């Protein structure tokens, strides 16, 4: 028999995008899980699944098999979760109608609360399909009840709460909400915004500044070109973005630039966004999200699109070699295809260096216990006390986790642990060491704001790229409300955006009242 023209990378369960497009509203129990595989052909990774109605359906999954294989080396044990409904062993996706099922393999790293469906923009690529015409607003009591339910299932602590929507800065009771959530055991609160109000509203800026020890801003920022702004936001609103960045930086509020990147639109501006972040104090992170086809974003070519590894591959050329894909690793806690992360640190000579280049891939894996064999073979390491190794490993896992953010209270410890072995420069280390002394906290904030940048690539799945295992290991959960019992629960982000029956259970839509 002749050989196939492709190599199977891994076997997966997937879903048929054609069936989905024919009837996006079909009951979840009728959604078929299909046998399939990721196949490497012509230097790309394709998702192929067999559909009883449409036959073999092939879509582009990722652009670089080499980088995808590299990412798969970074996996760590996941954390135990508490299911929303005990005994829920239904298959994906219908299981999510009753919240997190028994067969989920990761707890909630990020809880996303959609406060309202209303937005002051109508972005052509909005996955939540928000718009000015929608007025549904979740009552504050419902939002807090949802958060408290999650707290009760997360051992009384939420790592990251993301406030989204719609446009969360338009939430009528935002101030009360921020006061209430910062009074709860929630480590970080992220506000996911388009920045229009931040650019103009002094009161809002003051509110964010008041909460800046716990609250950070995820600011949509698509690049420098008018084309990027018009394609993704429907209008050239760059001046608002620039003003929002200036005002947030001036107020010392940690900000992450969140870029929606699309092939042929702004995939050549990734480097610009990274450089913009490197040059701006308190812009502590960049998140690049290849555009995906859920919600209104239906203009994605399923056979030729920007992907996770495509973004990584473009970094080196667009940043003049300052950042390369080897400076990032997969997030060890999430599915390795779901997120990659890298830290850049500016040393005392003013040069930006990545955590992986400072520590080295092998040592980083060793510290993460990803290579037990390697660890076992290094007798010299026996000289390092186990306790010390455990601290360093714990710190690294924190740093490389979905919930990490630069103003996290444990960042000083993390950096001290890690940087003892790095050549960061005396001044940096001195500042880090002194952060424990009274009155030095602000200096540490300034140091982190000016000299550390977290680069993340976050590819969300639409039906053309959806595979079951990534949903199962997802830790970015959207707050939903059970359609039958009205109980608060949550479900994986990509599932909620893709399937209309789940999307309708988002807290803003399910509990929303006309504003």
């Amino acid at each position, binding site marked *: *028999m*002749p*050989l*196939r*023209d*492709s190599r199977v990378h891994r076997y997966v369960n997937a879903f048929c*995008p*054609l069936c989905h497009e024919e009837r996006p509203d079909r009951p979840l129990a009728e959604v078929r899980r299909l046998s399939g595989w990721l196949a490497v052909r012509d230097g790309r990774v394709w998702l*192929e699944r067999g559909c009883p109605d*449409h*036959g*073999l*359906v*092939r*879509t582009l999954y990722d652009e670089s098999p080499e980088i995808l294989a590299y990412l798969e080396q970074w996996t760590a044990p996941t954390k135990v979760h508490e299911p929303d409904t005990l005994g829920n062993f239904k298959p994906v996706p219908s299981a999510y109608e009753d919240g997190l099922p028994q067969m989920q393999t990761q707890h909630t790293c990020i809880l996303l609360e959609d406060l309202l469906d209303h937005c002051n923009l109508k972005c052509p690529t909005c996955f939540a399909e928000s718009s000015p015409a929608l007025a549904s607003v979740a009552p504050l009591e419902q939002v807090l009840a949802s958060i408290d339910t999650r707290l009760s299932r997360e051992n009384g602590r939420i790592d990251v709460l993301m406030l989204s929507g719609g446009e969360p800065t338009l939430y009528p009771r935002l101030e009360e909400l921020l006061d209430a959530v910062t009074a709860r055991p929630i480590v970080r609160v992220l506000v996911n915004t388009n920045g229009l109000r931040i650019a103009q509203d002094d009161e809002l800026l003051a509110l964010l500044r008041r909460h800046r020890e716990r609250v950070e801003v995820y600011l949509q920022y698509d690049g420098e070109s008018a084309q990027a702004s018009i394609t993704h936001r429907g209008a050239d609103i760059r001046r608002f973005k620039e003003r929002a960045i200036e005002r947030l930086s001036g107020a010392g509020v940690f900000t992450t630039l969140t870029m929606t990147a699309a092939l042929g639109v702004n995939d050549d501006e990734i480097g610009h966004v990274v450089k913009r972040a490197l040059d701006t104090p308190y812009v502590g992170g960049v998140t690049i999200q290849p555009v995906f086809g859920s919600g209104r974003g239906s203009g994605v070519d*399923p*056979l030729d699109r920007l992907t996770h590894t495509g973004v990584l591959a473009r970094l080196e050329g667009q940043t003049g070699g300052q950042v390369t894909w080897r400076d990032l690793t997969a997030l060890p806690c999430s599915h390795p295809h779901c997120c990659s992360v890298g830290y850049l640190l500016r040393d005392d000579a003013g040069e930006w260096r990545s955590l992986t280049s400072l520590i080295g891939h092998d040592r980083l894996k060793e510290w993460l216990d990803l290579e037990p064999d390697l660890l076992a073979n290094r007798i010299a390491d026996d000289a390092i006390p186990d306790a010390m190794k455990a601290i360093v490993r714990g710190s690294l896992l924190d740093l490389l986790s979905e919930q990490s953010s630069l103003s996290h209270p444990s960042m000083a410890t993390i950096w001290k642990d890690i940087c003892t072995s790095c050549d960061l420069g005396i001044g940096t280390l001195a500042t880090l060491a002194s952060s424990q002394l009274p009155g030095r906290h602000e200096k540490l904030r300034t140091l982190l704001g000016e000299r550390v940048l977290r680069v993340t690539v976050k590819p969300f799945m639409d039906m*053309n790229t959806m595979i079951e295992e990534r949903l199962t290991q997802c830790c970015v959960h959207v707050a939903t409300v059970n359609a039958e019992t009205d109980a608060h629960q949550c479900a994986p982000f990509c599932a909620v955006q893709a399937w209309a029956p789940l999307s309708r259970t988002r807290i803003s839509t399910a509990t929303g009242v006309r504003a």
Partner: protein
Amino acid sequence: MTDPRIVPTDSLNLAGTSPSAAGVGAPAAAGGEAAAAPDPLRLCIFATVALLGWLLGPLALAFFAGLGVVGYARARRAGLLRSRCLLGDTRLVLAYLATLVLLAIAALVVGFGPWRLW
């Protein structure tokens, strides 16, 4: 129009060299290396077609070419754009078969070649 995500069934072998295409009309297959003895039915069919051609001449050509035109026209309407025939595109195959029909009619009317109607 077919969605480009759907992979046509006749390319499902994914290898460029289709086993079915390689086997079509290949007398070598009659040599048979398979465990079960192959039935060389095609050889019988070819011989019978040749006999009919010899006996009926242009009539046989008109009949079989006409049959081919009808068959390929139906297949094309059903969505077959490429045939395993050497000509590939089903439009080319149809043109070829139509030419054969015309040739047969001409031979019957004008009378040329080794066979004459009157």
